[in-house]
């Protein structure tokens, strides 16, 4: 069946999303035009959805994604793909603050730079940023992988519980409680394979992998008995 085109303009977002959902339910791919950087487009879409935004989108585009394939032609505002559990979101341009916040799974691919706090509180899945990631990216992430091909801003991977930040470019500074590691050949192969699937194969990259130094895992005094002193 032919793509259905939905126009955003100044129409109520509820109506726009309802039209997108109806089209998806009817088994049609959706092209969304005149997006005007509006917030909350394509929230909570499921695996049947294949949605393309012609233009830029505002906050939370593809938020709570549950399997949908979403493409944003230009830029995305705050928290694109927040709390995504599965699916694939591609941003052609730049992404604002907190891209991929608290993602649990799926793939978020940003072709430009990502703003600060990219992948903060992330719990799974992959974020690929072809440019740089902003300051405090990966802050208190639990699991998952952030891959930035051109490096990172200040306090990269600050206070990680778990998960990995992969950099093929310089970081302005590393966050607290981080450990810089040399990835193994197999690990590099896995990441390069993921990138190759996205048309980003390049065997000449110099990878650094940042993980938690696990010092913040435990409060200064760990002994349960010490907590009885009150």
């Amino acid at each position, binding site marked *: 069946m032919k793509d259905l085109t939905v126009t955003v303009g100044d129409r109520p977002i509820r109506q726009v999303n309802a039209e997108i959902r109806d089209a998806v339910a009817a088994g049609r791919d959706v092209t969304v035009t005149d997006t005007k950087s509006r917030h909350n487009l394509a929230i*909570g879409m499921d695996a049947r959805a294949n949605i393309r935004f012609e233009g830029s989108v505002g906050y*939370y585009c593809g938020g709570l994604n549950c399997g949908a394939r979403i493409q944003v032609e230009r830029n995305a505002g705050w928290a694109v793909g927040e709390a995504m*559990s599965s699916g694939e979101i591609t941003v052609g341009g730049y992404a604002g603050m907190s891209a991929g916040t608290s993602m*649990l799974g799926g793939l978020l691919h940003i072709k430009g730079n990502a703003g600060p706090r990219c992948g903060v509180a992330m719990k799974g899945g992959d974020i690929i940023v072809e440019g740089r990631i902003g300051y405090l990216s990966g802050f*208190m992430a639990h699991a998952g992988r952030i891959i930035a091909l051109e490096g990172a801003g200040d306090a990269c991977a600050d206070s990680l*519980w778990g998960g990995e930040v992969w950099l093929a470019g310089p970081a302005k500074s590393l966050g607290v409680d981080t450990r810089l590691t040399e990835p193994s050949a197999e690990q590099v192969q896995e990441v390069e394979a993921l990138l190759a699937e996205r048309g980003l194969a390049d065997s000449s990259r110099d990878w650094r992998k940042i993980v938690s130094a696990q010092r913040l895992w435990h409060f200064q005094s760990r002994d*349960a008995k010490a*907590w009885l002193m009150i």
Partner: protein
Amino acid sequence: MADDLDESGGFPFPMPSEEAVAMRDGSIESHPVGVPESYEEGKSTRWSAKAIADVHAMSQLGRYQLRGFNTFSRSMPTFDDLVFVPATMTRLPLEGYRESCETETVLGDRPGLVSEPIRLAIPIYIASMSFGALSANAKAALGYGASKAGTMTCTGEGGMLEDEREASKLLVYQITPSRYMLDLEHLRKADGIEIVTGQGAKPGTGGVLLGMKVSERVAKMRSLPLGVDQRSTVRHPDFLGADDLQVKIEELREATGYRVPIFVKVGATRPRYDVAIAAKAGADVIVVDGAEGGTGASPEILLDHTGIPTISAVRAAREALDECGMSGEVKLVLAGGIRNGVDAAKALALGADAIMIGTAALIALGCNSPRYFDSYAALGTAPGRCHHCHTGMCPVGITTQDPELEKRVDVAAAAERVARFLTAMTMEITLLAKSCGKSKVSNLEVEDLRALSLEASAFTGVSLAGIDRPYSW
């Protein structure tokens, strides 16, 4: 001269001996004078036994102290400073045993927005307490108990526990800054969604769960390494101010198809402004949690020295909704140290639409009950004064993840106690409401109360007893 103690100074008898003056009969040789109890208890108002012990603890540990339960501050005014003035000549009371008093409470029922408002049979529900802070058995028991009484529970920040979803007919799902386990699937299983911006016990600070309680199941639900001392973020990762919150609320409505109400919870600090902002951002229900609110673990100084008392928060919150014309459309839930139906009735009269109980519900489950004396003793405490929720060694199995301790919560019996407690609380509320001539608990009003202290009057605007005027500046 008068300053010469050896002079008889005009006595018509000889100077008494020093021994006779010293009142030695029965006195203690070493300290014959002074405030008698000072030798037993110490009387320094600055250096109480607690203040001294605090310095000793900090000087050994090199950190602040953490504990559970709620504030130990003596400075909090309480609902006990207010009394009801029931109907007499000027108003007609209802017959306590014959006439009914409506207790149904609906949240999220502003016209034309949410398709499934929450209908509670009673004006009380169970506060947000996470699986992690509480054992799975405790969560399940709260759910079954609340459901039997026709009311609701709330997940807390640790994600949605299957046992609780199964037990609770109505369940509010919390979105906290740490976003543990938050995805579309769980969001859509909720009957209400609560965005947490703070809590009464420790406003302005994220949650704490010490490693003793980060069991395998807890760690899995929170995507955490096993046994870490979890300290949650306090700021939401994807919104900062009121305008962003408005967008976030719209996102959650889109994700849930405008089906369930959206709650915003604030710790009571500046309720007048926070409530107005939350209402403007589009919340259906605003939860104000006073400083007396409990917690599983918190730096102790935050429990005792941050946030404002529950009775002072509720008036400001109600006035804020009145001022922006949102009373009735946006519902106000009050929590923080509510102990019984009397406190709850006073809170309703002061302006709350519904009441949340946390610690009281745990006590109904069996918290501090006189059993397992050895387990209390191992914590250096005893039934009736235990506040060791943070240790994970709860003697009655409520605030623990130890599988052996957890078995001490008999889910069926504990659920029944919770249901009976909620029923009894509701009876207390309707008893007071009927005596004030109200056929609905929601009709309780400020005029039904009088203040017994200047302080309570000044905090709440309730008229002083007898003089019938509020303390005024």
